[in-house]
């Protein structure tokens, strides 16, 4: 409130008052954590719009949104968990494990599609329960717990489909709901689900008591506990959420592609963390937003597809992402945007 003090003694012109107001507005904009990644996405989109001829074509839109939607859904769960101060490295394998179980039950064993889906998601959730219990009961870093789970699931995935791929040709209501094209648009159902899920979790984080507790748990466990926040329960619930969303997103991918291999979701654990961090979520907990992670996922997808469009080999994009990630984190640390962890 004291930004005009240096102008004391000068005639208070309208322009200086106007400047103060603009400054106050700019400062309040800085509090919007999604601003920086949003501008980044805008820049990337502009760049590819100018550099390529077919960036806004339906095919490109389909490609970007289908990649981004599933990563974003996984990233939303990972973001919740990261804000509460934990990691989940098993989401990528869960992203394959859940649809594989679903497809095996539903396609091969002929179990009712809904029951099969519920069973598969139940298993995904169980993975989260185990991650949460092991981490909180034994007090070990979730990095290790979920790395272990990563390998456990990878092994199970190998065992379940032994190098084959599962293909589903027959139309079914569940797969339609999770992966169908939306009318004649270039967009598919995962996009709709992503918007719904992001909105729900945005509401949870910012408008529910639970959200308050998630931030407090990851921010500083000591005071949070002292204030009566059930930090252990918050972490456990977030592990389950993260696993469930990863499994659900995997089922959407399967429904969209009509096929699943054990390689589905490879690197997704890292891409989800990357999306979250690009979107402003702190690696140290206590800071982050759902929409930031969604924007982060779109950044990843846009760069991936855009680079292909300008003729860069498809597999090269991760190199670019790696560089971007490090730059963004350096910028965040420099700007002190990761909160009081330096203090």
């Amino acid at each position, binding site marked *: *409130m004291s930004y005009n003090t240096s102008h004391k003694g000068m005639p208070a012109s309208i322009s200086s008052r106007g400047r103060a107001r603009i400054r106050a507005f700019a*400062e309040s904009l800085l509090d919007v954590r999604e601003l920086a990644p949003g501008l980044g996405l805008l820049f990337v989109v502009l760049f590819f719009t100018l550099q390529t001829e077919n960036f806004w074509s339906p095919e490109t839109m389909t490609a970007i949104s289908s990649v981004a939607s599933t990563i974003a859904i996984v990233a939303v769960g990972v973001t919740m968990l990261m804000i509460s101060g934990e990691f989940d490295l098993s989401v990528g394998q869960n992203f394959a494990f859940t649809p594989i179980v679903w497809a095996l039950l539903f396609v091969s064993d002929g179990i009712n599609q809904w029951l099969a889906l519920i069973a598969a998601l139940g298993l995904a959730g169980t993975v989260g329960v185990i991650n949460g219990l092991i981490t909180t009961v034994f007090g070990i870093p979730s990095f290790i717990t979920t790395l272990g789970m990563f390998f456990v699931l990878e092994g199970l995935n190998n065992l379940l489909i032994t190098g084959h791929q599962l293909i589903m040709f027959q139309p079914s209501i569940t797969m339609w709901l999770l992966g169908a094209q939306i009318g004649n648009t270039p967009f598919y159902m995962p996009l709709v689900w992503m918007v719904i899920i992001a909105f729900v979790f945005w509401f949870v984080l910012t408008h*529910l*008591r639970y*959200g308050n507790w998630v*931030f407090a748990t990851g921010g500083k466990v000591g*005071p*949070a506990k002292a*204030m009566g926040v059930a930090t252990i329960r918050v972490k456990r619930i977030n592990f389950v959420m993260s696993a469930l969303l990863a499994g659900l997103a995997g089922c959407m991918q399967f429904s969209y592609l009509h096929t699943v291999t054990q390689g589905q979701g490879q690197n997704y654990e890292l891409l989800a963390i990357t999306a979250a961090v690009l979107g402003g979520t702190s690696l140290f907990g206590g800071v982050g937003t759902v929409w930031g992670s969604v924007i982060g996922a779109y950044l990843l997808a846009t760069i991936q597809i855009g680079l292909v469009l300008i003729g860069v080999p498809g597999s090269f994009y991760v190199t670019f992402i790696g560089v971007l990630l490090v730059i963004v984190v350096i910028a965040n640390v420099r700007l002190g945007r990761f909160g009081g962890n330096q203090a």
Partner: protein
Amino acid sequence: MSRSPVVADGAISVPEKRPAVDRTREPLFELRSISHSYGRNKAIFDVNLVVWPGEVVALVGDNGAGKSTLLKIFAGYLEPTSGSLRFMGEEVRFRTPARARALGIEAVYQDLAIVDQLSLWRNFFLGKEIVHKVGPLRILRRRRMRREAETAVAKLGLTRIRSVEQPVLALSGGERQSVAITRAIYFGAKLLLLDEPTASLSVRETRNVLASIERARDHDLGVLYIDHNMSHVLPVADRVVLLEHGRIVRTIDRGEVGVEELQELIARRAQKIDC
């Protein structure tokens, strides 16, 4: 130990007139012949200590004198090995700090007062959020909490943040404690426990924290606090309790001796401890 004058640079003033603590009332908290041992090491020997509502009791003594152990017993972090606790006339046993909190005993620690990344209003209401219940959902009443937090901290004159919507990481150690004390008053705490609230604070900040302590007393809270710095203890304490090797060796009432005499007494004692 500090041998600085009572009124440092005239910055921390000693209010001369203050209503005496009404000790005919029911005591707020009472320790009756409390002893505590850590394994074989006896830390507290047969301590009797009473805190009345609206009274500020300062616990002073050298490192290892047992101040922190006593505070932990008050806060429910430790169960004494022997002796009994009475809170508002009833015998109590705290098995957890949460139990003590539920009765209105609020411990404020400098580094545990606040979650840096949360905005001020979220910190203020953390764990005691005002919510609308809709089915299983507890929806935060954000506008109301924002407004109430704004009003409550308005008197603190916080200068480092622009609004209650901002994360509190910009707040200084003193401001954090002032916020925490204000929060305790707001939520109707009865006894406030402070562990070295003025350690490593500037003069101005110390004054603010002491003002918050006075405000707590004005709201009829009992305050028990540990401090090393006599010049911080004297302006606000109604009673100074000197601990040595786990025993209370001296209790000095504000009315009993003048401020300067008191300072001298403690300084002499402290000198002896300092060697």
